[in-house]
């Protein structure tokens, strides 16, 4: 310390601050040093991209400040500032914690979808492979379930107007087709009473049909 600085005792320094303290009044307001806090979006962006963000943030401005052209002299909020603020401000650290928790639960979902477009080659191939496998599995399931639950032949046979005999050809094959109504051309009643009918199996006809020939 140089010789002429020996007057810098505690009292002198306090007096110095007292003289100019009013200039720093905005710093003393609010729960923390500033009344303005970063927005939720800014905290989220900071948490997600803290390594990639440039070291310069703009302190949130009100519309009126923008209207007055205050951008040029806005307080600058660097990434370090934001990091310090989020760590030390009770309100903002709570927001950050909530966002972190929400991010953890949603991460697998986000990872999966982001892998399609933005991830590296390996992740992208994996994502498409999972999707293709899931699609094949789903298709197999549908095809496997359908024959047991929906049998078109069974459904055709329960109709009143199905003619089995008429569709019997010489080779022994039976083609089952519902008869259309001859009077109106409307066959909507043909399949109308499925639920009321007892299903008739093809085997039930085999004996009598063959006996007819």
């Amino acid at each position: 310390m140089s010789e002429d600085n020996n007057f810098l005792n505690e009292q002198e320094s306090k007096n110095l601050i007292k003289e100019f303290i009013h200039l720093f009044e905005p710093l003393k307001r609010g729960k923390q040093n500033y009344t303005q806090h970063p927005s939720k979006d800014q905290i989220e962006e900071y948490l997600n991209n803290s390594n990639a963000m440039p070291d310069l943030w703009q302190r949130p401005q009100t519309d009126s400040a923008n209207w007055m052209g205050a951008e040029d002299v806005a307080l600058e909020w660097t990434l370090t500032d934001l990091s310090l603020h989020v760590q030390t401000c009770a309100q903002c650290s709570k927001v950050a914690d909530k966002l972190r928790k929400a991010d953890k639960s949603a991460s697998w979902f986000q990872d999966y979808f982001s892998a399609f477009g933005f991830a590296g080659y390996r992740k992208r191939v994996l994502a498409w492979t999972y999707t293709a496998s899931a699609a094949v599995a789903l298709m197999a399931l549908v095809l496997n379930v359908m024959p047991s639950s929906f049998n078109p032949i069974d459904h055709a046979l329960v109709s009143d107007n199905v003619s089995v005999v008429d569709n019997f050809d010489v080779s022994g094959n039976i083609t089952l087709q519902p008869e259309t109504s001859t009077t109106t051309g409307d066959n909507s009643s043909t399949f109308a009473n499925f639920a009321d009918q007892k299903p008739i199996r093809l085997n039930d006809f085999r004996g009598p049909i063959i006996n007819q020939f």
Partner: protein
Amino acid sequence: MLLKLCYDDEELQAIMALNIEYARLAYGEQIVRGTNLPPTEMEEFLCMDGDVDAARQWLSFAYAVEDGDADAVRGLLIYMCSNSTDKVDRSKRAWLLEKIDQKAIDFRSLTMEKIVGTHLNWSHVFQLVGKEFNPTREKDRIKAIHQQLAAQDNLERETA
């Protein structure tokens, strides 16, 4: 104009007062960082809320930077800002002191957010600006500039 439609005069005055107060503080940050925004251009903007004296005081610092030892003025501002709050922010102080010791930070990368609540002592300030200076001398110089500006304003008002 839009603001005038949305708010009545009192509300508008309150909004402007708050924002201009922050703008003055932001100008102080610019002085600390050495961005050299000319005080002549900032003059009207900084007193838009009618607090001419507060604007004049910040402008005195800016004129002092232009005319004299810029590092000393910055050091003075850093000290005052750092000690402006009663409560010490211990984590912030520890962080800043570590950076100062490692010489990993200088006044160009300082912001109000980094400084406020750190309660630096003079030796830390000298390390930050890279030199020792006489704070009382600087303070007196700034006060003299302030008085000069006030006298000029009075003269202009009288002649008008």
